């Protein structure tokens, strides 16, 4: 589907998710509560068929955190970006491991580096940091006087 068609169709099917203008790919911004159902629909609906989650990261804006999902459909050929705004003190969103299995590793990484809690994740261990690490290194307010030299 073209970008305009995708945008029109999603505005109709998911009214609570406003679109972002500009950007390389169409972007929607659902709330954390509406995300599980929307994810299921994006995967299974024959119009969308987003079967490839190719990126899952987070961004630390100093006032809040945003979790960003990049979805692609290998059969229909369109791409979508999903951005979910989360509160900084208790960032919680439901896992999408049961929908896209690659999220198991991607969410482990986001959890250890940003502190975003993914509810009902089957295996919430650290991925690259040692198990005894304290703090969330990729947050803007992370301090490490031993290793970090501040510019």
């Amino acid at each position: 589907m073209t970008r305009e068609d995708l945008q029109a169709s999603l505005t109709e099917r998911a009214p609570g998710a406003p679109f972002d203008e500009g950007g390389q790919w169409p972007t929607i911004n659902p709330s954390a509560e509406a995300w599980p159902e929307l994810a299921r629909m994006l995967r299974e609906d024959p119009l969308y068929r987003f079967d490839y989650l190719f990126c899952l990261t987070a961004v630390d804006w100093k006032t809040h955190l945003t979790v960003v999902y990049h979805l692609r459909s290998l059969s229909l050929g369109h791409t979508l970006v999903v951005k979910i705004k989360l509160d900084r003190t208790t960032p919680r969103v439901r896992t999408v491991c049961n929908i896209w299995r690659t999220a198991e590793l991607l969410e482990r990484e986001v959890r250890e580096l940003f502190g975003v809690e993914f509810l009902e994740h089957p295996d919430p261990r650290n991925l690259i940091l040692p198990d005894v690490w304290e703090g969330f290194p990729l947050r803007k307010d992370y301090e490490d006087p031993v290793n970090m030299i501040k510019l």
Partner: protein
Amino acid sequence: MSDIQTEAKKLFPGTVHDTPGGGVMLGALEDVINWARSNSLWPLVFGTSCCAIEMMSTASAKYDFSRFGFEVTRATPRQADLIIISGTIVNKMAPVLKRLYDQMADPKYVIAMGACATSGGPFFYNTYSVVKGADHVIPVDVYVAGCPPRPEALLHAMITLQEKIKAGSKRERINIDGTKIK
């Protein structure tokens, strides 16, 4: 005498005396040993990041380093005598690097290739995970600047190391327990 023979006389550490029935070369044993060591340094396969791509390109056909004697890159440190640290050393990799260096037999040499191995490079500020220079972990003989250094720069560093070895290693090196290595 032809040009090649005069050249060979300059490169080889000794004087050639022409005697009937062939020539005789006389030189100091130390010089001959250093000459042999420098012309057959076998590097260890050690590449962590982007500098490894430049090292691979230095090893392959266009900028071949095997014409200088670095013929075989060994996968095991027990058979290598040079380690080219090409790439970033992170805190998790530092004990591995130390272990590989300890497993190499003397005499062993180290080239720190690129900005990351020299000083942490672009990751010097504001990072929790990078060792700010490989010389925090093992002693380094030659540093190469660049991010990544061109193959010609790496070849220049390798030739500099060869000249350093031929000049005789006047740098004092010490064992783990503090005694000096001759």
